[in-house]
């Protein structure tokens, strides 16, 4: 089943069906003024009229901390990969696009990441098209859109009191087929409404001029501008931890007497310890180099390696930076600076 209409009042049934089908359902839930993806047990908790979750949903696939193996003394044991079937309901297209970027990192190259793969394969992503972007959103300037399908299995459009579902992957279609008993076939008018919705939504996103940004950034590594850009940075990890495409991690051992586990946990290129050698040498010794790494990784290195910009324009880093460092502005300043050959 590729399309279906669900009355908003029937959402409860839909979520219940998913849970009955032995799937964990994650959806945006409002808690103390923050909206976060949380496992839900009923549709009542789900908040669909949110704009962007405070934390990106990347943690559902790359948890902040997960065990790679456990050990007792010198003998180790593999941690079995997850087999849980999951549905993420109500993801924003920008976050879904970020997942497809991360798929490139974790599944390409000579070695694949089994933990990431297991979670991705067992999860159906139901995205919800965006109609009311924030001032800090800029998805359309980084190859995205409030209705982009990349990374999602199903897209949901809110049309009046109904939700229009459209599936475009096998996983997505299978899920809709499962719910076919209470999904109605959409009328022509609904599809027209969707099209209007799409074009209206795209226009609402503030647009930047990021044309040729990759070429402009290519010559900016040695610009003195980096010092002034990074000057106000405080070196916390907010931007990277909230970012849906930042995926750097650390591997450390945790012990409890003889027993222990090897864990991988989020790490941030903004921390000085990130690249510190045991000898004391640090290739990125100050916040200038670390800021440069973050920006160029997203806009240049990822382009070189994957032909993708590892920024999806969700605006989280802009909204939550304690000192209002704005990646949009940074890029603009750099692009201008390269032109001048400063």
């Amino acid at each position, binding site marked *: 089943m590729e399309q279906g209409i669900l009355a908003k009042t029937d959402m409860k049934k839909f979520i219940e069906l998913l849970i009955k089908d032995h799937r964990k359902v994650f959806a945006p839930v409002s808690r103390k003024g923050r909206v976060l993806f949380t496992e839900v047990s009923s549709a009542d908790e789900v908040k669909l009229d949110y704009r962007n979750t405070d934390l990106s949903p990347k943690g559902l696939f790359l948890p902040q901390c997960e065990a790679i193996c456990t050990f007792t003394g010198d003998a180790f044991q593999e941690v079995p990969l997850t087999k849980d079937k999951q549905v993420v309901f109500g993801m924003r297209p920008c976050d879904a696009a970020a997942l497809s970027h991360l798929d490139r990192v974790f599944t390409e190259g000579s070695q694949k990441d089994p933990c990431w793969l297991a979670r991705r394969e067992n999860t159906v992503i139901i995205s919800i098209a965006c109609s009311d972007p924030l001032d800090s959103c800029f998805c359309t300037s980084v190859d995205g859109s409030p209705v982009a399908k990349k990374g999602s299995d199903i897209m949901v459009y809110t049309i009046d009191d109904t939700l229009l579902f459209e599936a475009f992957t096998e996983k997505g279609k299978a899920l809709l087929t499962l719910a076919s008993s209470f999904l109605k076939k959409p009328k022509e008018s609904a599809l027209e409404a969707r099209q209007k919705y799409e074009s209206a939504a795209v226009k609402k996103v503030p647009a930047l001029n990021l044309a040729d940004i990759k070429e402009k950034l290519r010559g900016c*590594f040695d610009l003195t501008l980096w010092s002034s850009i990074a000057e106000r940075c405080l070196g916390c990890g907010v931007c990277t931890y909230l970012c849906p495409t930042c995926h750097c991690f650390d591997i450390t051992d945790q012990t409890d007497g003889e027993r222990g586990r090897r864990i991988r946990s989020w790490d941030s290129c903004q921390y000085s310890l990130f690249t510190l050698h045991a000898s004391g040498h640090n290739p990125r010794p100050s916040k200038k180099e670390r800021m440069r790494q973050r920006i160029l990784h997203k806009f240049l290195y990822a382009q070189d390696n994957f032909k993708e910009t590892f920024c999806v324009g969700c605006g989280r880093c802009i909204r939550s930076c304690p000192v209002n460092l704005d990646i949009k502005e940074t890029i603009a300043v750099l692009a201008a600076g390269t032109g001048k050959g400063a």
Partner: protein
Amino acid sequence: MDNPYLPYPVTLADFIIENDARDLKTFKLVFEKKEDENRFSYLPGQFAELSLFGKGESPIGIASSPTEKGYLLFTVKKTGLVTGELHNAEVGKKMGVRGPLGKPFPFEKMKGKDIVIVGGGFAFTTLRSAITYILHPDNRAGFGKITVVYGARTPGELLYKKDLGEWGHDRRMDLHVTVDKATDGWKGREGLVPNVLRDVHPSSSNAIALVCGPPIMIRFTMPVLLELGFTGENIFLSLEMRMKCGIGKCGRCNIGHRFVCTDGPVFTYQELQSLPSEY
């Protein structure tokens, strides 16, 4: 699917103290399972994550050659948590090895060519692997003249003294060992590696240079190699970076868009010049 984050179980079979400062030891590791040894198929220049449960992992260049069957050698300097623990380890200690990781020296490209090997200090490890590999009777004929220039600060800091002794008598190669500062009883050369290299003056025609050493040595060796006529694509260097995953995912060892763990650690001088100097 194999989990690339899991090590192969190995046992510490032996170790030797390499230097007077006693902070460099070469560890001989033996796979617990024969099939793991077969799966761990490597070439000189590659590295592996040494894994000590409870302490963590540390990326170390492989010092043994694949022609040395039955064991792996790693020369490790005592610096951090993992290497400190390793230095305290006793024979029989169970640990892990994850790899092989990274790209080896370009043996395809080196075939039939003269090889100039320049090493300094403790960075000689993967070069030892390369020399041993090249000198092996099965491989020696595949390469031309072998010239090795190796230096350390003092005689006591030279690695692999046994190998150096044997290679010194080996007519199949031309070995020049030097020290920055001679001590009593040192009969060999005294002088910095770049200067010795200039003296030795190996031919650059149909030749490849492999260079590993501390940054300062690299900085002064490069002009000499260029002077000798080596071009950027014929000089190969091995880099070091802080690493965790070793498979290009964890995001910390990049120089520009290249990852030292997967695209390196061996790079041509030409490649390095096109990359930012952030290492």
